[in-house]
């Protein structure tokens, strides 16, 4: 059972090894040149599968940033979000400061009047002022931190590597696929030339002809 789960957990690697061996077997043991070429292609494809699976991550997505198009646009998006939150936050701070200053002014006027009028009432008024001011400041702080938090999550989305698969092996494989296609093309062209020369693509028959002639 352990063996089974071991195989299932790394199924992609097993698949690549099996494909590689199938290809290698065809490449070495087959008598027909076209079958050998097919084996060669399977062999190369196995390596491509290997590379693709080393770049893959479960639950991750392709490394393209949404709400933008491409690398620089992604950066723009993040910068934009940060700017937006900064303006948000500064507006909130201004508003709160306004609140607070009016509160303090009012309180000063009130308290001076109250002090002049009655000492007993003054402490109550001051308390009220303090409560008003601190509420305003709290509101500011809450506003600002929410905006900053939003900005932070927005901005860090662009660089959080955990959420994305590694694009490099896939890009490398684009090149390897091109190389594989080119090799296949040259091999088929050569096979046609061999067929024109000997009238067959079976290696033993060709060797027979070479020995006789």
């Amino acid at each position: 059972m352990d063996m089974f789960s071991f195989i299932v957990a790394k199924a992609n690697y097993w698949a690549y090894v099996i494909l590689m061996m199938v290809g290698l077997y065809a490449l070495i043991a087959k008598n027909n040149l076209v079958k050998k070429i097919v084996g060669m292609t399977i062999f190369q494809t196995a390596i491509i599968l290997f590379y693709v699976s080393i770049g893959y991550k479960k639950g991750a997505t392709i490394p393209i940033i949404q709400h933008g198009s491409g690398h620089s646009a992604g950066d723009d998006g993040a910068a934009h979000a940060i700017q937006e939150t900064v303006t948000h936050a500064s507006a909130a701070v201004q508003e709160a400061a306004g609140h607070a200053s009016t509160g303090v002014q009012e309180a000063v006027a009130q308290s001076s009047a109250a002090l002049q009028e009655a000492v007993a009432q003054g402490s109550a008024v001051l308390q009220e002022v303090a409560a008003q001011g601190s509420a305003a400041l709290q509101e500011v702080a809450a506003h600002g931190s929410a905006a900053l938090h939003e900005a932070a999550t927005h901005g860090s989305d662009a660089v959080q590597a955990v959420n994305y698969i590694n694009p490099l092996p896939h890009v490398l494989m684009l090149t390897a696929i091109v190389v594989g296609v080119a090799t296949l093309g040259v091999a088929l062209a050569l096979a046609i030339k061999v067929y024109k020369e000997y009238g067959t693509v079976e290696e033993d028959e060709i060797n027979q002809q070479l020995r006789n002639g």
Partner: protein
Amino acid sequence: MTSHLPAIVIIVPLLASLIAAGSGWINRKAPFQIAVVALFISFVSSLLLLAQVVGTGVAVEYRMAGWAPPMGIVYVIDHLSALVLVVITLVALINLIGNKKAVEAEFKNKEGAFSSLYVLFTAGLIGMTATGDAFNLYVLLEITSLSGYALIGLGSSRAPLATLNYLFLGTIGATFYLLGVGYLYIATGSLNMADLATIIPTMMDSPMILFAFIICLAGLLVKMAMFPVHGWLPGAYSEASTVSAGLIAPLTTKVTVYILVRICMTVFTPEYTFGHLESTDIMVGLAVCSIVFGSLSALAQKDYRRMFSYIIIAEVGYMVGGFFLGNRLGISGAILHIINDAAMTLALFMAAGIFLWKTGDESRNSLKGLYGKMPFTMAGFTLAALSVVGVPPTCGFFSKWYLISGGIAAGQYLFVGALIFSSLVNAVLFFRIFEIAYFEPFKEHHHTGDENGREQEDDYEGNAHSNPIHNDPHGSSHGHGVLINEAPLSMLLPFIGVCVLLVVLGLYSGSIVTNIIHFAIPAGII
């Protein structure tokens, strides 16, 4: 301008290959000229790079499109790669110039395709040498291989089958290398060679690194035709057209050995390759097998081009064995032999091209009486042969000297024995050719049996036959008083140039080792 030299050295031939392919439709002579100019520019750039690197003593690092490593691809020209670059561009240039007539005859109406492939092949080799990125190396390896398959496939009627076998094995080799790079990437997360070299020493015990090393090495050994996986080489090289063989035979195996040195020394670091893995015994043993097998097989060949091809397999054994000795003498010998063997193989295959041009026959017996008929060519060939055997003051002697002293220093007496055995076998091989060519009378028979020989050649001989009274020394005089009937000057002069180069390389091998190769080997190796 000079700061862009590492890019120029590869981009010029790459673009020239594109232009040459199209220019054939406009002017039939243009592709050849474009190819020569591009290779010349490349050669001059690599000479300047070598001068710069030797002058400053610092490696030149070129960032492609300005991207910094390890993210971007860098081209790194150090002492070793600058030296190999000069060798590649020089060999490609001389071989192309020297085979101008053969190209015109063999690739009639295919000049564009041929020149394009020729330059593309060279560009691939240059890139392989200069790149500092493990995956970029794979791409360039495949560019080289694919253009090489096409060049070989354009050869004789048997060439497509031989090429297809080469293609199958070559693809296995390259794909193994790719797989190795994949594991290296999983383990380290990097593809930049310098970056890899800093990461690998921290994780020497990782089985993933070991697997990556083995599988990369296996891929490269297939590509360089080391003993158990050499099967593709003799067929491919002996069926190729002479000009393609003259390019591919000297360079492919040698540059792959360079890649082996680069991977084992720069990427995996000598501490890992020699210290941690103790790879010396296994690899030197394999090299000994390669040397003995290559030499003995060469002895069994009747065709001289097949014989030279088996000698290449033995020479690959020299270089791989020398490198894996793991001491300064052995590695110096291996690197020196990369240069010397490229020059020697070029000389041999150019000589083979001239023989084929004149006689149209590949068998050893067709060389009868050639000393009388083509004294200059044969003088050059003698020099090349003596260099392969290892007679001073030709360059073959000096690299063998380093290899043998390295073998003694490392206590690998089997390797020393194999080197001496191979030299003796080479002596037998070449003295047998000397005997045939010097003592046996020249016979005018080569052509009649070769109906599908080259047109130019028939023209040439046709002229000879049209004046039998003045110009018919062959049938009657049997070696004595044979009129000189040399190869055309455009073939002869570059060939003689290469043969003189063999002696020059030999005489200057001391300064090459102390001024260049010495700096190419990490200081930790004694």
